[in-house]
């Protein structure tokens, strides 16, 4: 029971740690995908280096049909217009980013509605804007006030207009809260004189595997068009590097944890084996062959480990499920730090099946290695010495 308990606690501990680690990675990726790049982006080949509206393009006709047929039911495309502007209230002017969106697609993509703190988001069909609550505060704007926008449109055209503020968006990610101006993509096209052009198209897919399939399939159709389709890893190389670095440091921590866990389990197995030396000696003195005894020890230890692993997984699952739906809120400086990195101030947990599978397998491998001790002991202990214990 002690050994099974030791394995069980080890599994729960390892699961929790891996779930937190993976959860924060998933959150970073998810935020990037949902509020930034999407899984894929169709861009002009020059746009990635120079994100200017001059490299906007019209994706319509035959190419749009091919895109839709490639996407099927597993993915969808969202046209976007994004450009830097100066935004002014009555007294102040601030730099901001105009994002032209289609409200229902935006909500489908990132659940945008839940971040709308004031106003009716569907009213964005009308002429008007939603702005980040941080930006509103900086410009001392209220709903129904007028926002003035001045920027540069397509090929040097002036982009200037006045818009009523229809509502606010309060988002934990500071760059959204402090900089974003949302308007309908058609309105943004008019503002920047883009006509049917869009700065880029985002593609959201069911998962990364589907996204990669879409990229592989659709890039064939882009040959000779001057357009390209980029995966989020190509769009966010810094994030990929940061995740790789974090994974490496996470692995170091995991290895330290596994060493601690392994010694914990080994301690219980060692005690169990030494306590049973007399029993082993009796069995061999009565006629049990040592390899049979070793096999018995092996099977026993593995069964105990299996028991511990399965109970650990059974206990770990509801714990992780609880924290998955109720992530731990971060407070104080840590919260600010996380927000600076564009993440929500929560310690998220992952429920990826791979965590349960991997931790279960790792624990069984550890147990298997530790099993070597009682097996070795079965072959080497001295009968007479242990009979006298």
């Amino acid at each position: 029971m002690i050994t099974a308990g030791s394995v069980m606690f080890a599994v729960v501990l390892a699961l929790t740690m891996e779930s937190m680690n993976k959860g924060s990675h998933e959150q970073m990726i998810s935020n990037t995908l949902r509020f930034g790049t999407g899984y894929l982006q169709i861009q002009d080949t020059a746009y990635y280096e120079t994100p200017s509206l001059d490299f906007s393009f019209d994706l319509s006709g035959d190419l749009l049909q091919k895109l839709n047929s490639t996407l099927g039911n597993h993915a969808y495309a969202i046209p976007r217009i994004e450009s830097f502007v100066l935004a002014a209230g009555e007294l102040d002017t601030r730099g901001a980013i105009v994002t032209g969106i289609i409200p229902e697609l935006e909500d489908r993509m990132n659940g945008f509605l839940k971040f709308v703190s004031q106003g009716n988001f569907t009213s964005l069909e009308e002429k008007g804007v939603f702005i980040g609550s941080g930006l509103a505060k900086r410009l001392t704007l209220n709903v129904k006030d007028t926002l003035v926008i001045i920027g540069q449109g397509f090929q040097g055209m002036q982009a200037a207009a006045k818009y009523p503020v229809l509502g606010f968006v309060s988002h934990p990610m500071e760059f959204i809260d402090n900089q974003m101006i949302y308007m309908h993509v058609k309105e943004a096209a008019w503002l920047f004189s883009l006509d049917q052009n869009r700065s880029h198209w985002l593609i959201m897919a069911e998962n990364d595997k589907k996204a990669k399939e879409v990229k592989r399939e659709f890039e064939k159709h882009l040959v000779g068009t001057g357009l390209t389709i980029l995966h989020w890893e190509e769009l966010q190389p810094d994030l990929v590097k940061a995740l790789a670095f974090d994974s490496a440091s996470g692995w170091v921590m995991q290895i330290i944890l596994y060493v601690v866990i392994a010694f914990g389990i080994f301690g219980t197995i060692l005690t169990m084996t030494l306590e049973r030396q007399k029993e082993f000696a009796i069995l061999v003195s009565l006629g049990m062959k040592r390899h049979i005894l070793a096999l018995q020890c092996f099977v026993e230890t593995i069964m105990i480990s299996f028991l511990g692993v399965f109970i650990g997984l059974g206990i770990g699952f509801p714990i992780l499920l609880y924290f998955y739906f109720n992530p731990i809120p971060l407070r104080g400086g840590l919260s600010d730090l996380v927000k600076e990195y564009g993440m929500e101030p929560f310690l998220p947990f992952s429920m990826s099946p791979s965590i349960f599978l991997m931790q279960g397998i790792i624990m069984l491998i550890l147990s298997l290695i530790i099993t070597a001790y009682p097996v070795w002991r079965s072959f080497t202990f001295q009968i007479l010495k242990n009979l006298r214990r």
Partner: protein
Amino acid sequence: MPIIQTKKLYKIYNEDTIPVYALKDLNLDFEVGEFTTIVGPSGSGKTTLLNMIGGLDVPTRGSVLVDGTDISTLKKNQVINFRLHHIGFVFQSYNLIPVLTALENVSLIMELQNREKKEIRERAIHVLEEVGLADKLNSRPSELSGGQQQRVAVARALASRPKYVLADEPTANLDSKSAMNLLDIMARLNKDESMTFIFSTHDQRVIERARRVVTLVDGALYEDLKKEG
């Protein structure tokens, strides 16, 4: 025709530094169906001799021949096999497996011999009845008195019908009544099933029942007395 022979048997500890002779030039023959006690003061080599005959210990010099085979030349698994099929051990401290019931303890050797389950159960119950423990089949050692535990140990040793029973001070921890009961059981089996019994003992009651008394002093043979009739 002797079935167990010790030839120039030596067991020496610390041979390279200060040698201690546990057994010294011991030459003994044991016949089929003997009821023999090995006596002598503490440290005279009684237990060491039994361990040598049972293949639990190896001689420093000399040999132990059982049915003409020198058991010290056998491989480890062959020695274990030899013990499993030919020898029944009764230890002074019983050495029962604490997590097993009396019935399971007695069945253990027969299970290791891969006998039929039905046969194992019937034989184990029969032997436990023989030693007067019919009502303790499902008791664990911790639920039994010292005398009862020793009777389970004897039942375990006898259940597989070994050729030889080696008993190391089997009555040492028993009261007078339990000791006599145990001796009665072993004497009956010796007579009925022709098992060869070799005891090490200090117990005068055992010595009186034995037909042969081998006395060891400082590891050497001091006296080998065979009683008439």
